[in-house]
């Protein structure tokens, strides 16, 4: 949409989605290029989660098309599973597997989905757990970790699959304030290493630091999409201004 870096890796065209009579997405189009870092913000209920959950088909859109890494999303289960391997996702509620240790959380999909050997999987897991700064918690269960630690494990778990795109859905909203920084630091590190990133967040500091493109959504539509500088200093839409004022005030 804005600054072109590489080829397009996600193409979203005129996406529509309703829940019953409620329209969550009213025709959203968005392109993401390789290496691009996109931050999406907007008021609650504006369809941000619905949009990024459509990208790995956790939500099935009513109409419109999504092409990820050259593959059009359809009802084809194999294609969906293939795309999910290329797309890592981090949830607001962490969603770690509580019955598995941190290490097992990170190796499970590697072994069963990517068909890696136990040893290779553990090495990859250790590598990423070190990069999110929690190698020493490897043999604990998620319930024994703090929220910030759990979210970093969730990031490592997604990265272990070596995805081409990372999706974050408000990764810091469920965290106590003192833990937000440790998660954001990790996210910045991976975003700056060139990982294609789509992130829903209201952490504007993070957005300023890493975003190539800011997107503001309201009532199921993209209201504004521009580079961070323009976005924060002279937004075109009144609604964006209002929203930014509300957010930046506190």
């Amino acid at each position: 949409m804005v600054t072109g870096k590489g080829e397009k890796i996600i193409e979203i065209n005129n996406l529509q989605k309703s829940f019953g009579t409620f329209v969550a997405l009213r025709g959203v189009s968005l392109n993401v290029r390789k290496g691009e870092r996109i931050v999406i913000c907007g008021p609650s209920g504006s369809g941000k989660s619905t949009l990024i959950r459509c990208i790995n088909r956790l939500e099935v859109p009513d109409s419109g098309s999504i092409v990820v890494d050259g593959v059009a999303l359809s009802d084809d289960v194999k294609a969906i599973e293939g795309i999910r391997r290329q797309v890592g996702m981090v949830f607001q509620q962490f969603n770690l597997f509580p019955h598995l240790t941190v290490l097992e959380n990170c190796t499970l999909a590697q072994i069963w989905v990517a068909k890696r050997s136990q040893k290779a999987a553990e090495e990859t897991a250790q590598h990423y757990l070190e990069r999110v700064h929690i190698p020493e918690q490897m043999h604990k269960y998620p319930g024994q970790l703090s929220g910030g630690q759990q979210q970093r494990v969730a990031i490592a778990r997604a990265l272990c699959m070596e995805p081409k795109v990372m999706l974050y859905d408000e990764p810091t909203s469920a965290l106590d304030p003192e833990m937000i920084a440790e998660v954001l630091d990790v996210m910045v590190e991976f975003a700056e290493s060139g990982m294609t990133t789509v992130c829903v967040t209201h952490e504007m500091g993070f957005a300023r630091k890493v975003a190539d493109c800011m997107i503001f959504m309201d009532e199921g539509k993209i209201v504004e999409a521009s580079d961070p500088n323009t976005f924060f200093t002279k937004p075109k839409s009144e609604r964006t201004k209002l929203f930014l004022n509300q957010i930046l005030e506190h």
Partner: protein
Amino acid sequence: MVGLGQVFLLWLRENLFFSWRNGVLSVVVGGFLLWIIFLLGDWFFLSATWSGGIEDCRMRQDGACWPFVRVRFSQFVYGFYPSVERWRVNVVMFVFFTGIALLVWERTPWRGKIVLFMLCVFPLASWFLMRGGFFGLADVSTGRWGGFMLTLVLASVGIVTSLPFGILLALGRRAESLPFVKAFCVVFIEFWRGVPVITVLFATAFMLPLFMPASVNFDQLLRAMVGFILFSSAYMAEVVRGGLEGLQRGQYEASDALGMTYWQSRIRVILPQALKIMIPGILLTFIGLFKDTTLVLIIGLLDFLGMIQAGISDPRWGAPNVPFTGYAFAAVVYFCFCYSMSLYARHIEKKFSAGRDRRH
């Protein structure tokens, strides 16, 4: 130094007598308990007849008549299984209980292999061994099976098969994308759950043969087993469904988002967690099943309780304390089995939750 007596008094005051109302309650309930224990102890042991025969029981009627149990014991265990062939049942029971003991003991090596053996090889092997009719083993028709061995056969078949069927039915019931599978599962579960167990047994005992070609001689015991499997799977399916619904949606989404297939996610992520929530329900179903086996009485099979009842109605053992003795014996045996299952369930539950949900 505080003496042991003082500690005891302190404990009494803190736990039983910390207010006058509490004290009165403690005395009343405690007295009642003591009275019951005394009555039972007297009846079971002190006033009981331990040796001799029915004449001795008739002389001491205010206590249990243990000679009855002793004389009838082998029938309670084996039913009408011919006595020279009973070693076959003994072998099966020995392997059965050894297998269970090995599995309960957590440090047993090759537990996985033992489970496989107990689930796949053992049931078939024991069926053929007890049924006989080949290699010079005398043919013992299932009509002669009975007593505790029949209870075990029915209960373990019901228990072992109901869990996998129940899981499949519960998963099918939640399969929104497969409407026919879903409809089948819903109808199946609701039908068998809505029908009394006795009706199920009647239906499978007397109606199943109508659907079979006349040449197929469908064993009465097999028919009862089919009935048990049908309704216990339906019950189990509802227990499993409760477990599946107890999980957060995030667990399904996280495993989907990692690219897992439906079965990978069910087997590695969903079921292990759901199973933990389900343990009390599963065990309750098992215990219920164990006791429900007794209902095969109505289609002419005599399980443990059935054999005891048959013994009681034997006119040679006519004495007022004989029926009480028989039922008391049944109660004690059923209680021991059911209570150990429930103890084991609690143990598993504790083990599963240890170290996981706790933060330190």
